[in-house]
């Protein structure tokens, strides 16, 4: 999705950019324009439209964003990209028109013009496919090129992966993004072999032992994990296979033993599942529902488990305090979310407050399980492409994703009273979501993040 916007940006003429932010006026102009943008976005949010809005922010700081975030912005409006952007464009046009009132500045008008131009350009190559952008050939080639070098440049890979990784490359890309597999291809096999053996050692040392060798605490932890594994992703039948549950149990137990500050916390079982399906996809074909663990050799299973274990560890290294006593990391992110929503969508924020709704009542689970529980399972890996591409910045960016996710239902929320609102938020209607809806959430999050990071005082923690 955000490749769409970047491509659009790249269609601006150099002169336009200079006009917008000529050195002499830039510093003073940026602040006031930012505030203006903020006000306008408030209005825009009602319509919930996308790429057009993103241009607003990206344009305020072209030097920065364009250069920083788009090494590959010189073209890749693929067929699929165009297809999906086309649909979005229509709504964003509505949004723009609704909003072209008093607050519209000349820069917005210009922007709108530019947008239309690039739309016309993209219409010429329009194809009907939507939502399959991660597999389009231009992107595939970029991924292949990026992965084939002796040393993978992680920043480039993050850039690409942010917008979605082709499924068959996902295992390799995720291992790299998480810093599990080394960027240097000569070392890669050796490191993975060593790490996988290390995991096997852990299993032998901690898991394959009698209960008499465990402390009471460890017995309790294993018991809790054993209670939870059979009820992990209960709506996907693959996870009902006893062998899958055993693998999950080993991964979680080893992780818990090696992370005594938190130990096993419910929800971490959910977090292991995307890794499991992605690393299993290297060995099993077709849809997850039809997979059978019986088709795998013991070696394959233990390698998959090892990869899951290490990747889960890497992911959680960045958010350890989400799972320690009182879960301060989660409380902090929920607090930031509340603040951010207040900045972005005052009416919703006020309504929620008037109704006495606490963010912890719904967002706690969002953070604890990183939204896995809130969207259909088949979309989770796509969401995680973006998570893993964010790397160390993920916790900060999560707040924006959550805000964007929540405000998808901005209009609806304002009509609900406390009880209906809590129940609505605990069972959000995402059943029929496709990549498109998810990517809209991510694009919006990206836009807000770009906007607000320039004004950090809004979000002091």
């Amino acid at each position, binding site marked *: 999705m955000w490749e769409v916007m970047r491509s659009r940006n790249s269609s601006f003429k150099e002169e336009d950019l200079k006009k917008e932010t000529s050195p002499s006026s830039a510093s003073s102009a940026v602040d006031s324009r930012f505030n203006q943008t903020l006000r306008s976005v408030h209005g825009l949010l009602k319509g919930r439209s996308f790429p057009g809005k993103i241009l607003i922010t990206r344009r305020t700081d072209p030097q920065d964003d364009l250069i920083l975030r788009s090494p590959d912005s010189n073209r890749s409006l693929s067929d699929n990209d165009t297809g999906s952007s086309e649909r979005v464009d229509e709504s964003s046009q509505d949004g723009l028109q609704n909003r072209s009132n008093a607050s519209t500045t000349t820069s917005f008008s210009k922007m709108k013009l530019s947008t239309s131009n690039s739309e016309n350009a993209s219409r010429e190559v329009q194809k009907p496919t939507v939502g399959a952008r991660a597999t389009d050939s231009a992107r595939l080639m970029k991924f292949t090129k990026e992965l084939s070098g002796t040393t993978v440049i992680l920043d480039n890979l993050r850039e690409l992966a942010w917008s979605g990784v082709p499924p068959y490359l996902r295992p390799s890309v995720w291992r790299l993004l998480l810093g599990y597999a080394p960027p240097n291809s000569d070392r890669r096999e050796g490191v993975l072999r060593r790490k996988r053996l290390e995991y096997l050692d852990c299993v032998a040392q901690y898991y394959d032992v009698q209960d008499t060798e465990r402390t009471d605490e460890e017995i309790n932890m294993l*018991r*809790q994990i054993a*209670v*939870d594994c059979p*009820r*992990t*992703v*209960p709506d996907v039948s693959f996870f009902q296979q006893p062998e899958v549950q055993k693998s999950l149990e080993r991964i979680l137990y080893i992780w818990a033993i090696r992370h005594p500050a*938190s*130990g096993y*916390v*419910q*929800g971490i*079982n*959910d977090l292991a599942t995307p890794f499991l399906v992605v690393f299993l996809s290297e060995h099993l074909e077709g849809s997850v529902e039809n997979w059978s663990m019986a088709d795998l050799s013991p070696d394959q299973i233990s390698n998959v488990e090892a990869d899951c274990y290490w990747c889960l560890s890497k992911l959680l290294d960045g958010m350890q305090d989400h*799972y320690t*006593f*009182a*879960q*301060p990391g989660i*409380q*902090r992110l929920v*607090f*930031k979310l509340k*603040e951010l929503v207040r900045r972005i969508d005052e009416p919703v924020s006020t309504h929620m407050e008037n*109704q*006495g709704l*606490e963010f*912890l*009542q719904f967002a*706690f*689970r969002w953070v*604890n*399980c990183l939204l896995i*529980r809130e969207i259909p399972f088949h979309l989770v890996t796509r969401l995680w492409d973006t998570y893993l591409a964010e790397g160390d910045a993920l916790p900060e960016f999560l707040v924006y994703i959550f805000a964007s996710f929540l405000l998808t239902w901005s209009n609806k929320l304002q009509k609900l*009273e*406390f*009880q*209906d609102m*809590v*129940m609505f938020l*605990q069972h959000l209607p995402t059943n029929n979501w496709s990549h498109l809806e998810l990517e809209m959430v991510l694009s919006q999050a990206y836009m807000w993040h770009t906007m607000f990071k320039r004004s950090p*005082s*809004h*979000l*002091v*923690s």
Partner: protein
Amino acid sequence: MASTGLSSSNSSSSSYDLSFKILLIGDSGVGKSSLLVTFISNSVEDLSPTIGVDFKIKLLTVGGKKLKLTIWDTAGQERFRTLTSSYYRGAQGIVLVYDVTRRETFTDLSDIWAKEVELYSTNQDCVKMLVGNKVDKESERVVSKEEGMTLAEELGSLFLECSARTRENVEQCFEELALKIMEVPSLLEEGSAVGKRNILKQKQVHHTSGGGCCS
């Protein structure tokens, strides 16, 4: 019926005589959420572990009164207790659940959960109901009915054995609790008070430190 001309189009806030807040507590995996889902929706499904707190509403008629029960279903794992403890406030009824096939879930009720109730419940007269779940697994049972009754006596609570899977005694569990609540004058008053909406709108006491630009 005809006289309830005020009934709102809003399903969950349609007319009722009394409204009570109920809390479900107990160890992880004893079947709190399953009990609730069975009670609310007549369906039996496999559920993920509850994270934090879940919330459901049930309208029912007990003793000739139309009741609205707002039920908070809490996560059982210890790590979530800081969060869940704030939900005890203002509850008129608390359901303490254990699994008759796992003894530790039973002993934890007196070792841990009863103490939590004492510590966090703001309602002196709050009615407790002890529930032994999973009686459909009779062959795996390790906690006898007599033990359950003894504990209930100690806790001064009601007692039932039930099965979320077969639905046995599930409705009774909530109905008996509601009946008992209505027998307690102070709770009855709370349930019918003008400010009944406020029962739900508890302000969380546990704001983390961290603060913010505006706090």
